[in-house]
């Protein structure tokens, strides 16, 4: 995988906040909560990492947009585009 793609950057953020998941088995389209038992603390850690890395604000009500890797990718792309 190209290390610079948005998906692989998100994947590496995900494994940094949840080092106990096995990324090669992850389906990017499936919800993290279903797939790897993401709980509210994992969600917060992931949102914090995404917010910091990409310099974007994420409201509490927007955590749901990080539900899967694919969803997170679309969300970050949208926010980065809005930032210009």
């Amino acid at each position, binding site marked *: 995988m190209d290390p610079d793609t948005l998906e692989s950057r998100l994947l590496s953020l995900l494994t*940094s*906040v*949840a*080092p*106990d*998941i*096995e990324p*090669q088995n992850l389906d990017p389209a499936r919800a993290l*909560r279903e797939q*790897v*038992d993401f*709980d*509210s*603390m*994992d969600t*917060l*850690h992931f*949102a*914090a*990492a995404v*917010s*910091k890395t990409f310099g974007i604000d*994420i*409201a*509490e009500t927007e955590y749901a947009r990080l539900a899967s890797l694919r969803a997170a990718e679309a969300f970050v792309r949208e926010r980065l585009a809005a930032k210009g």
Partner: protein
Amino acid sequence: MELEFRLPSLGADMESATLTEWLKKPGERVRHGEPLVTVETTKGLIDIESYEDAEVLEQLVQPGSKVAVGTALARLEVQGASQAPPAAPAPEATPPPAPMGPLAPASRPPASAVESPGTPPPRARISPAARRRAQELGVSLEELERFAAGGFVHIEDVEKLAAQRPVAHTDARGAMRATIGAAMARAKREIPHYYLAHAVDFAPAREWLARHNATLPVQDRLIEAVLITKAVALAAARIEGFNGYFLHGRFESSAAVHVGAAIAVRGGGLVAPALLDADRKDLPTLMRDFSALVTRVRAGHLRSGEFTAATITVTSLGAEGVDVLFPIINPPQVAIVGAGAVREQPWVRDGELIARPVLTLALAADHRVTDGRAGARLLRAIADLLAQPQAL
């Protein structure tokens, strides 16, 4: 004064552990509360903290050795008077837990509880997933370290290494399941549980939390579990009979409130390490401790003090949960509070039917210590605290 540093019991059912790494060499000094050695148990890797300011004289057990609870691991030279009993109890058929044992939890240095999320322990060169896979495949840590030659070991490396040789299969998840099974069987055998449930209007807590979080960057926000934990801690400090241990045939109340937070381990299993002095910490501090605890659970690397300290436990299935969770007491504790999922439900207020987010709390408590009346007071106190979240 010279003394032996022994392997403490890190839970009612722990009989042995495998020493994985010395964190101090002979001749080095270790401070009170500082990790001295890492052991592997069925609950993962645990750093065992020294209960003395001391100098390491000699390591008596080498990495890779499996030793029983109570075994002398090292000889230490201690300056001045000993701060705690020098030895964990020798192993018996059922080793008694040492909840207030060699590690006085309240005196742990606070700095050790704070780590930023996502920062793995600095010396971990083997990823937790790789470590777990290694255990599953029966690959020893020494083999891995030889293979890695100082580099970082990923799960693929473990599989490569395992494929090169025939190995005995050990089952880490099976071991954790057996540990949980043993503790819960003991709870059900020895503790006459009684159960109470109480529905709480969670709207005030939720609205306060939304307002509080709205102004904060993501990493400083609070989660609902922290409010619930704080409310349980304050109620347990106020109402006698729920915070402490049942040991040697009687209840020993604890002045400090260390709340065990049940945290699911991915791939199956559960650990409940303690949030120390939860009743006395403000919400942001408690949140940081909680966050660091979850990070350490995810990295498979806890501290010994966290295992033995909890005086009461809170457990929750989170947003994916169900309405009510009837928990089982974690001995030698005498109470546990289960939090159901918060759901919109019909609620009557001032004669009117309205929709509210409702949290149902369930208490399991020890009938050798309290009766339902006291349990009801505890649940009502928690509910009252959650109705005034700004005061938590």
